[in-house]
């Protein structure tokens, strides 16, 4: 039984307590520390929703504090593999090599929970007349060896611009969004070098919003009035689908992805309670409010 007084000491030790609690009291079940901190890190796409979860969860369980930070899915997963945090947010799936490394470092198998969905939207400036794009065109634009460098090559005339060179906005390579885009829009080909690689979903959308000739990609929750989301078609001739709740659920939007939480081993105690809450109606409501797509009714968490 671990009892920690609510004091500064508790805050200092709570990381340890949380870890110790999980391993030492796993069988006990009855143990309940009075103050627990859950360290949560990872995806920039999910950082907004994770922060809202943390704030709301404090009202539900005042004795549990969830500390959220971003950095990218890769950063969160790297920290989880070292055992430095309790939960990693990831907008991509854990790779088999990463799971192996977690077992090697900590002796525990990472466990994933799908907590919502996101559509990766392709953004252009609001004054750009383009309204839809195919995955093939995105590949020509973004992938290594691609030929498209000017808007006129896509048949687009941007008003009031003399130099219509396309400004490609991309993400830093630790971003789950970057990897998802590479996998699903570029078919795992490499990015063509020379894109502006920004450190954050919001920053990418902002740059597109302030640059007439830019194109970029980011979670659909980050849309602003200055940008326009393009409809995306799988190939030429196929219908172009705009990102949204319905098109994500029926999987017709080609760049939809699931959002995950990863823990080391089966979560226990306060951590389990938190994840259960995230998957509950209250947690899913926050997913929806943040501009993402909640789990459809009756969807079971990913095994």
């Amino acid at each position: 039984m671990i009892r920690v007084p609510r004091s500064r000491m508790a805050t200092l030790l709570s990381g340890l307590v949380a870890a110790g609690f999980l391993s030492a009291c796993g069988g006990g079940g009855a143990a309940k520390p009075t103050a627990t901190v859950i360290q949560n890190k990872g995806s920039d796409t999910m950082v907004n929703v994770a922060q809202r979860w943390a704030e709301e969860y404090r009202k539900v369980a005042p004795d549990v504090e969830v500390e959220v930070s971003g950095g990218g899915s890769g950063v969160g997963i790297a920290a989880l593999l070292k055992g430095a945090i309790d939960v990693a947010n990831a907008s991509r799936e854990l790779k088999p090599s990463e799971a192996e490394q977690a077992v090697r470092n900590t002796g525990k198998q990472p466990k994933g929970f799908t907590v919502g969905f996101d559509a990766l939207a392709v953004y252009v400036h609001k004054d750009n007349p383009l309204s839809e794009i195919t995955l093939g065109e995105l590949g020509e634009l973004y992938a290594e060896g691609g030929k498209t460098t000017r808007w006129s090559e896509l048949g687009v005339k941007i008003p009031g611009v003399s130099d219509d060179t396309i400004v490609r906005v991309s993400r830093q390579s630790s971003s789950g969004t970057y990897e998802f885009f590479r996998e699903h829009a570029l078919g795992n080909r490499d990015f063509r070098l020379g894109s502006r690689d920004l450190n954050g979903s919001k920053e990418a959308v902002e740059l597109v919003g302030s640059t007439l000739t830019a194109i970029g990609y980011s979670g659909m929750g980050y849309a602003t009035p200055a940008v326009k989301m393009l409809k995306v078609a799988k190939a030429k001739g196929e219908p172009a689908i705009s990102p949204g709740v319905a098109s994500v659920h029926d999987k017709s939007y080609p760049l939809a992805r699931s959002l995950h939480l990863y823990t080391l081993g089966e979560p226990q105690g306060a951590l389990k309670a938190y994840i259960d809450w995230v998957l509950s109606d209250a947690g899913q409501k926050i997913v929806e409010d943040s501009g993402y797509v909640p789990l459809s009714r009756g969807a079971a968490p990913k095994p």
Partner: protein
Amino acid sequence: MSPDAPKDSARFPRPQRPRFAVALEHALEALIRLSGVSAILFVAAIFFFVLREAAPVLVRDEFSLAQFLFSSDWYPTSANNVRYGTLALTVGTFSVTALAMALAVPFGVGAAIYLSEFCVPRVRETLKVTIELLSAIPSVVWGFVGLTVMSKLIVDTTGAPVGVNILNGGIILALMSVPVIVSIGEDALKAVPDSYREAGIALGATRWQLVYRVLLPAARNGLLAAVLLGVGRAVGETMAVLMATGHAVHIPSSLLDSVRTLTANIAAELGEAPAGSDHYRVLFLTGTLLFLITFAVNLTADFVVRGIRRK
């Protein structure tokens, strides 16, 4: 204290300082010597540990040093063809630094000449305090300035599509290196003996002729050292260039292109690279490369400074 101490002092009856004072002096001397040597130890240790983290990748078959140095393909996380070429990053570092120096050297040296030769003492004190304040601004704040104020200004005046680019980074770095150049340059000019000035004036030289014909040649080494220290500052700067240069890996063709520098690349990618992976080791190798560049610059500056002292 040894038991035969009184006997010693009886045999040598000249006045002696208390033993503890002597011992304290020796201890202090040893301590000071240690702090002097420790700087060398630290530099050597840092170099050793950075290189040790990087070394295993050097012997990997997949890794080629020629590619690392001379290829501009930087694909550390590629799914099917990982390539570690840092040429674009090195070019990025040098292009931003070169622009920064092109802007900072005339201003820095000019300000140093003005401070040391032309201005009245009261103005000088105010200016010196202000310039020192300039060097106290944290680099992340400079980054903000680049990202917001400067980037808008550049888009409005040049019509560039994106305001974070070489020009932006170069201006920010110039602003950061000017204080270094001014304070060391001023010292160098001050170190020129007054007899030179008096001789110049006695020969009927104007103030400008004095500066141009006498002081600049005499203080040449010191001014060069000031510039090289400014270069060192610019090459090693991370946060401001990370924010102001646009973070695009490619070899730039104009001042309005975005680039990525060696330092910014390490800062942006080290967090995600799993410890012990090739990517992680290559980033450390990049650190070693950076270390060698700044080391070479500082060493040159040092030799030059020693050149002045010998005169």
